[in-house]
């Protein structure tokens, strides 16, 4: 072993380096940039301002779920239910809003429902020590079933105009509000994960639960809160999405999107085992996936073919992740 003691300077550049945490971010950032370049050169209308804004608006919708998933996966879990919880929350809040025109309470209700499901997950996984995959699988079914039962399979229209304007409008007639929201959320969450004690707890818990416990980290709390956050994110998604599509339905986020979200986090450096991942990485990963879908659209690729390609891309990503960790 080299017996070196290197003296170091704790400079600003080191801080930035630490934020990018090794080579974990090189992959998502580079493939996204490369893809962006290729697409803008080869696909007509891709670099059109309207299209770019479209991409960012989409980012704004799935982004929250992806951020939530990042938290969960860093701590070593997974949340398969977030996409149906969106529907469950949306329909409850929407029904209320349509009936009472009270946007504030409507949104509040959406958040409450989503946090409820998050709590369900969190308690089962963190405190009852059940397996995340199956727990969130059954919550997914539950939330979906709830949404269908609540609405008797009907979609909800007639959401208040104010609601739609606030959450799906454009700031300065230009930047989509969802994009701003996701940017805010991403910055805050990225900060929490990389700079705070809580963030450190999550990474260590995901890396090795037992060691974390011995180190006096409250692993139950760490894991529990990640599912609450995931729930919160689902709630935000419910709000934003309902406003954007001007309706609340029983399947607001299609199951294929779950794949997109997981792909985004894995591309961004997260691992099923836990202990790694970042919001920045996830967002780039999501950008990549979104651009891919966008390009399929522009090229007139059948949505079914798109499914095949996206599925295969995810498989390839997982395969690469395996190689990376070997």
């Amino acid at each position, binding site marked *: 072993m080299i017996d070196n003691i290197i003296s170091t300077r704790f400079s600003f550049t080191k801080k930035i380096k630490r934020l990018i945490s090794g080579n974990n971010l090189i992959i998502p950032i580079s493939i996204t940039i490369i893809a962006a370049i290729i697409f803008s050169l080869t696909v007509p209308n891709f670099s059109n301002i309207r299209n770019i804004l479209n991409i960012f608006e989409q980012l704004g919708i799935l982004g929250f779920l992806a951020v939530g998933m990042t938290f969960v996966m860093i701590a070593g879990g997974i949340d398969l239910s977030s996409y149906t919880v969106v529907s469950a929350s949306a329909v409850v809040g929407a029904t209320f809003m349509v009936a009472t025109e009270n946007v504030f309470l409507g949104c509040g209700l959406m958040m409450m429902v989503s946090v409820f499901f998050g709590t369900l997950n969190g308690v089962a996984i963190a405190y*009852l*020590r059940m397996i995340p995959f*199956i727990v969130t699988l059954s919550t997914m079914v539950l939330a979906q*079933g709830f949404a269908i039962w609540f609405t008797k399979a009907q979609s909800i229209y007639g959401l208040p105009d104010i609601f739609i304007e606030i959450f799906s409008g454009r700031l300065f007639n230009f930047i989509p509000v969802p994009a701003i929201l996701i940017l805010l959320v991403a910055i805050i969450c990225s900060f929490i994960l990389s700079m705070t004690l809580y963030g450190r707890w999550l990474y260590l818990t995901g890396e090795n639960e037992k060691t974390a416990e011995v180190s006096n980290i409250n692993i139950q709390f760490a894991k529990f809160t990640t599912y609450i956050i995931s729930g919160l994110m689902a709630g935000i998604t419910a709000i934003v999405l309902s406003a954007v599509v001007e309706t609340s339905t029983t399947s607001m986020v299609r199951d294929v999107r779950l794949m997109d979200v997981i792909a985004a986090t*894995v591309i961004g450096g997260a691992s099923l085992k836990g202990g790694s991942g970042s919001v920045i990485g996830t967002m780039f990963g999501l950008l990549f996936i979104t651009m891919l879908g966008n390009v399929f659209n522009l090229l007139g690729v*059948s949505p079914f073919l798109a*499914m095949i*390609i996206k599925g295969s891309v995810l498989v390839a990503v*997982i395969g690469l992740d395996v190689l990376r960790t070997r």
Partner: protein
Amino acid sequence: MQSSSFNLSQIQHFIFSYGFYILLFCLVILFGFISNDFLSISNWTQISIAACFLLAASAGLTLVLITGNIDLSIGSIAYLAATAVYLTADYHPLVSIMVAILVGISFGLFNGFLVAYLKMNSLLTTLALMIAYRGLALVITGGSMHYIGKPLASFGSVKFFSNSLPLIFLTSLFLMIFLQIVLKKTRFGTYCYAVGNNETAATRIGIPVRRVKALAFVISGICAAISGLLLSMYLGEITTFTGRGMEFQAVAAVVIGGTSLFGGRGSVLPGTMAGVLLLIIINNGLGTRGVSPYIYPFVAGALIFIAIYLDSIKNRYMIKK
């Protein structure tokens, strides 16, 4: 070693092993009391028809779970197999059957290759493939409904002991019996349990672990294909909903039936069969009561919850020893 007196851990042991079947039995009696129709022959014919598609797919899935993996692509493989049946509808039914099974083998082989040989995570990989496979089927079918045509529809509704056991149910039953025998009586079956129990040990002593895992996926693929085959034969048509969500129901049934998510434990008969029956019976039982169809997902979700909670307790209980 345990003492021979009747103590708490023995009661616990008994509950873990048999409690579930007792529950099932009680449930049947309960529904029987609540509703007159429940115990009728026509209702049970209904139940066995509804069950057989899930039974076929779950049987194969059980093997994959025992080896310590999971296969979420079975619903999509079922759809692909059904699509294959549609494509060969003009030919002799035997051709359709063979092609469908071939579909199951091919995609099962691909799954097995990725998970066993490339060491990819089975959960995420089969989840992704679920989407990819479904997309493939949708491309082929154009995303619309298709009739299989008369010959196969009538094939599916031929009954065996006139009015009691439909052919498709018997097929599923035989499949289950066959796989249970494979599990308990063949070398491959013993290897499945060994790989699920302790992969490191299995590798060390020379068990062809990768081959075992891959073969489990192939079997799962075949079973999923058979399920799709039966479904298309019975309904006489395929739609974009064919096989949709079946994977989650199957996982629920298999886990409820006693197969551990941790691998190394479980059975097709009576385990998975009981799990499937439980789900179908509850759905059916609630139906005969005129309960809102929307309640079922709750019950299913709650059941899975309980099943996996018990599974994790069982697992910790075993580790303590």
